[in-house]
């Protein structure tokens, strides 16, 4: 920086002009004051808020194909509806009007659905954005960025009445002088640790259910369908827990990401060793082949759930612990031991 150091200055507070007349100086509140008598004198651009846009992905032919085909389908549907209404009018004008009203209602409903989906997608993007910024701010111990992230997080959970107190408390911390990483840890402890506990219980319950059903189901196909359904349910519940309603498209996106995440992290998820999984599996399968299968399916569900937490959680794990497969494992083997004894 080549900027020359600025000279120290002091102003009597009653000689300054408040740019915001409603402002009352309080601890930590950033007042805006000006030494010039004119309230409009402040004219400076704050370039700090400008954010780098992520690089655009190159368009692929498949995307073009999808766009063209969906355009054709929309045209076909429109044409069909138009033909239908014309046909209805040729029979009777009452039927025709009824058709128009129904088509209009369908259009409104479709629009509402689309808006909901878009809101859901934006929410997911917002969470991903908060996550990324929080991780960066914690690493760099950046006070201002951490403050912005924490404010965004408070806004994200604005509609949760049960978090009212933690939100207020955190709001007070934001106004104090606390270092970047510390502030994000406080946000995590205040807002997300209770959610983590709920998420852990959800995963455990799902895994147990899957293990149980697999053990007692007569056919492999039943297992498959049930595991699929349970995973869908689990991801949706986790997403709702951490970030509100994700919507169908958002949910699909999340599930895809969760499974992709799983593929990347592979068997060594969350610091658990593959050994313990295999050992556990061995132990379970020695008890009974069917029980062992149940345990494996339960573990699979839990792993998808843990991957989904990583994706839905607005902050990285700093002080908190992600649920570990070992916990699920011990719970499941206990279950199978009970099953064996029964």
């Amino acid at each position, binding site marked *: 920086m080549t900027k020359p150091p600025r000279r*120290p200055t002091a*102003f009597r507070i009653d000689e300054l002009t408040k740019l915001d007349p409603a402002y009352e*100086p309080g601890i930590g509140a*950033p007042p805006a004051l000006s030494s010039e008598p004119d309230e409009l004198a402040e004219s400076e651009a704050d370039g700090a808020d400008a954010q780098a846009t992520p690089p655009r992905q190159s368009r692929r032919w498949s995307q073009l194909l999808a766009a063209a085909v969906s355009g054709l389908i929309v045209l076909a549907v429109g044409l069909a509806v138009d033909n239908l209404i014309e046909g209805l009018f040729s029979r009777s004008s009452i039927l025709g009007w009824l058709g128009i009203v129904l088509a209009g209602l369908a259009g409104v409903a479709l629009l509402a659905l689309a808006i909901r989906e878009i809101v859901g997608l934006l929410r997911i993007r917002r969470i991903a954005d908060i996550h990324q910024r929080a991780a960066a701010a914690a690493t760099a111990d950046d006070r201002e960025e951490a403050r912005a992230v924490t404010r965004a997080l408070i806004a994200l959970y604005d509609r949760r009445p049960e978090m009212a107190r933690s939100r207020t408390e955190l709001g007070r911390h934001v106004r104090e002088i606390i270092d970047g990483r510390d502030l994000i840890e406080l946000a995590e402890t205040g807002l997300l640790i209770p959610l983590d506990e709920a998420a852990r219980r959800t995963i455990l319950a799902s895994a147990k259910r899957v293990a149980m059903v697999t053990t007692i189901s007569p056919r492999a196909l039943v297992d498959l369908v049930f595991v699929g359904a349970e995973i869908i349910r689990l991801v949706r519940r986790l997403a709702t827990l951490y970030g509100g309603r994700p919507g169908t498209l958002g949910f699909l996106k999340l599930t895809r990401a969760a499974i992709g995440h799983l593929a990347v992290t592979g068997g060594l998820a969350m610091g658990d060793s593959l050994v313990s999984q295999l050992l556990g599996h061995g132990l379970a399968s020695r008890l009974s082949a069917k029980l062992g299968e149940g345990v494996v399916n339960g573990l699979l569900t839990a792993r998808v759930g843990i991957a989904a937490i990583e994706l839905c959680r607005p902050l990285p794990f700093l002080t908190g612990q992600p649920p570990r497969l070992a916990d699920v494992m011990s719970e499941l083997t206990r279950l199978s031991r009970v099953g064996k004894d029964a």
Partner: protein
Amino acid sequence: MQLASIADEARLALATFAERAVGIVAPSLRLGVTGLARAGKTVFITALVHNLIHGGRLPLFKAYSSGRITGAALEPQPDDDVPRFDYEQHVRDLVDERVWPDSTRRISELRLAIRYESATFLNRSLGRGLLNLDIVDYPGEWLLDLPLLGKDYVTWSGEALAFARAPARQGLAAPWLARAAAARAEAREDEAVARELAALFTAYLTACRANDHIATEPPGRFLMPGDLAGSPALTFAPLENAGGNPASSLGAMMARRYEAYKDAVVRPFFRDHFARLDRQIVLVDALEALNAGPAALGDLEAALASILASFRVGRAGWLTGLIARRIDRILFAATKADHLHHGDHDRLEAILAKVVERAITQAKFAGAQVEVLALASVRATREGTVTQHGERLPSIIGTPLPGESLDGRVYDGAGEIAMFPGDLPEEAETVFSRQAETSLRFLRFRPPKLEQTAEGLSLSLPHIRLDRALEFLIGDWLA
């Protein structure tokens, strides 16, 4: 460095062993609050106790914020021959009168008993859930004496004369230096000469302190003699050609008294308070030194390095830990961080890290954990942004102490001001060089007016990073 005699060491080992034995039922932790005069030791201790007793805002002190501390109370201290720290009076000063406590004139001690529940099952069932925190407050001037333990009279004389002849102090030291040059060390001992030299030397030390605002030159007890005023142990001064003088010469008398000073004043102080610490916080008023210029900062650096060399830093094993206390965590805190906008705190920390660099390296080498913080035990200001000529000045808002002045304007201690103290340099090294003394000015502010709840209860003292300091210093004992 051998600072304590063998007898002292044995006594220390016995005392430590006895304390450890008692500590099995009620562990005690000795926190050393170290800092030169006016670094903010008394305010730090008061704020720490006040926040723990009154349940302040301490989100980063985990044992407290997670609700495991059930209470803290002042208890009778273990050492019966040391006055109690006058906590109540200091709180009254800060909260009701809104003045900073007077500078400390004597040593005092207090014990804070913290009741808590451990987070681990084993400690919860085995431990008592009680930690006694012993804190000692003392005049910062006395601290300057600790390096004397490792020096004899000849070495000290040489260093003191060289220090006085530095260009920055030559004017202040002139009367004493002139008289000292006339005195001959090999002349016959003469009480009148000794008294005269000591008086001039004391006057020079006092002038140095008034000039720099920071006392950096031993012996500290000359500035604050207390009961010992006029005794032979305080009637000596450095001399030229101090070594190799015949018995009953002036030089020999001075050397004898210097040793008496070490035995009567410095060694008991070191043995009773500094050789027995578990944790240490070093408070440094870096802003005052920045105000005074690069030379003062250099003096501060040298003074701190020599003081910190006399502490017993390092990790004690479980067996050696029974008979020896070692400081295993040191926190360096730049105090009065509230006199600066928070955007500059990182730079303040960098400057402090630079000032205490030698001490940090030593401590880390010995195996101790070290952290550097910008701290305000009591936060006297709020923050705001003032725009002037299209430029945003990150400012602090508070009431300056009466008599503080900036740009020819003297404040009366009544009205609030918004103040921009100047930008701290981005490169910490530059504060030591001459060019840096341009555009920094820190005023001193009055303690804050406390907010009151609807019921009229006053809330705890506001602070900056006091909770983080606590977490580092005692957090692991409450885990």
